[in-house]
């Protein structure tokens, strides 16, 4: 069980690149891209949260954008009430304090995940995919119906969240904050993957019937993973609202859920590191191809197909080499 050197070296290298990126872009006169890079890190966090249920637990959620949206709306609504001065239900004031709003975003997306998971996890396979999609679509239309908060147009944030006197409106500061959160989340989930809880999830993915026969009440473990995943995704949503200074129903669209699925599969399902790479690759490709031609989707589709077929364990599988067994 000697820890493998190669994946660790690659991870260290990637971290160094990520740390050096803002000054590098600045030196190249491409400082504009720092904001884009932060959005990539945020989507990577969302893809990571999806891999927790999909890659480790075998639960293919086609509705994860819902949690992204809930997280973003909590930040958006908090900020809207600060600007408007009107109170929230129960006479609570609006807030732009990250230490209040971001945890709240996680609580609300976690509760949403609890509701969606409690029902959809009674099914599996294609039914599970369809039900998670259906719930996300319901929330999408619900958000569009919030006339107070801009309906289909959504909410524009007047200020980014305030975090301990940090200047989050500064792209570099915001980028490093996102990087810090992503690294902590990735490290924690890698730890979880090898834990007893992680073993149960992977056992359920491989053979749920056997898990029950061994004595595991599988439903509650799957639900716990789903809620945890929803919370992490909700945090990504809160960050995304800050990144784009905007929260709208479009965040909950099925296309967004699909994008997250592509990131996970492209990067390498179940590896946790892979989906982060998948997010970087997909968004960089979209950005690069969109610069080249307006018909970029015609190129992106086949390109993804080739990647998916040539690297069945995803980009991370290609990079890290031999597969490990636990």
């Amino acid at each position, binding site marked *: 069980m000697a820890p493998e050197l190669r994946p660790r070296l690659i991870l260290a290298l990637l971290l160094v690149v990520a740390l050096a990126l803002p000054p590098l872009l600045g030196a190249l006169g491409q400082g504009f891209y720092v904001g884009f890079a932060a959005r990539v890190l945020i989507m990577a966090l969302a893809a990571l949260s999806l891999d927790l249920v999909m890659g480790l637990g075998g639960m293919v959620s086609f509705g994860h954008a819902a949690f992204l949206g809930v997280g973003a709306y909590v930040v958006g609504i908090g900020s809207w009430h600060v600007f408007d001065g009107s109170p929230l239900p129960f006479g609570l004031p609006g807030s732009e304090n990250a230490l209040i709003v971001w945890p709240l975003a996680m609580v609300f997306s976690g509760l949403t995940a609890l509701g969606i998971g409690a029902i959809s996890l009674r099914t599996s396979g294609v039914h599970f995919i369809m039900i998670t999609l259906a719930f996300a679509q319901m929330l999408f239309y619900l958000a569009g119906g919030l006339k107070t908060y801009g309906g289909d147009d959504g909410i524009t944030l007047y200020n980014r969240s305030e975090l301990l006197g940090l200047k989050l409106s500064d792209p570099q500061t915001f980028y490093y904050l996102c990087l810090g959160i992503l690294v902590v989340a990735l490290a924690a989930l890698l730890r979880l993957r090898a834990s007893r809880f992680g*073993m*149960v999830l992977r056992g359920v993915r491989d053979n749920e019937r056997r898990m029950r026969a061994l004595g595991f009440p599988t439903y509650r473990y799957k639900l716990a993973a789903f809620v945890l995943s929803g919370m992490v995704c909700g945090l990504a949503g809160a960050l995304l609202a800050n990144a784009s200074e905007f929260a709208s129903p479009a965040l909950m669209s099925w296309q967004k859920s699909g994008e997250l699925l592509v990131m996970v599969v492209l990067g390498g399902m179940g590896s946790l590191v892979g989906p982060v790479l998948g997010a970087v690759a997909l968004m960089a490709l979209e950005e690069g191809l969109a610069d080249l031609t307006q018909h970029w989707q015609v190129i992106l589709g086949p390109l993804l197909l080739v990647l998916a077929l040539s690297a069945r364990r995803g980009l991370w599988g290609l990079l890290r080499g031999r597969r490990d067994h636990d």
Partner: protein
Amino acid sequence: MTEPLLHTKGLVKRFGGVVATNHVDLQVERGHLHALIGPNGAGKSTLIGQLSGEMAPDAGRIHFDGHDVTGLHVHRRARLGLARSFQITSIFKTFSVLANVTLAVQAHQGHSFRFWRPALGDTALTGPALSALERVGLADRARDPASALSHGERRQLELAMALAGDPVMLLLDEPMAGMGPDDGLRMVELLASLKGERTILLVEHDMDAVFQLADRISVLVYGAVIASGTPDAIRADEQVRQAYLGEDR
């Protein structure tokens, strides 16, 4: 006479028109190796499925170790000490051999809402897992991926997983299915060594093995128990000879 460890009363299970379990009253004494035999499609796996809790009977009750377990979920029965192996090998293919058994141990050590410590670095899990592997003769394959095992070795792993939770009773559905003669012989030895130590309900087609190992034998034909008794009594039973033993195997 003491209460049997496991007994069923009037168990019935239908699949459409097929009566797969037909008013079965089965009694398995504590400490016995009890064999369940019968032709293909007699309803042996269906009976095991109801005992383990994967299938709900249409009628009847199941008592285990002083509990009425008829309505109990699979995982609850497993926690009570009722472990099963599957006729078709059912293991975790992306795990190592050791991780497969570790998971079986983990099922019996309280809840698994433990998110931090690596499970495979925890000797409270790997210790019992390794001894279960030693018991079945797979210790030297512990670090190999389960997918790399031969068919016979997978059957051994299947048994190690059932043993790992230190069960009161084993429900073994054809542990030798598809094994070559050498592997089969080793499995018979292993079962002989387990005899007396655990209560075992053994489904098996190999009559030599059954008559060599069993304390009691029940014969199932078309879902109904047509005879139950010692190996000598079963061998002498005219009805059994006609319905089953005489025919093919």
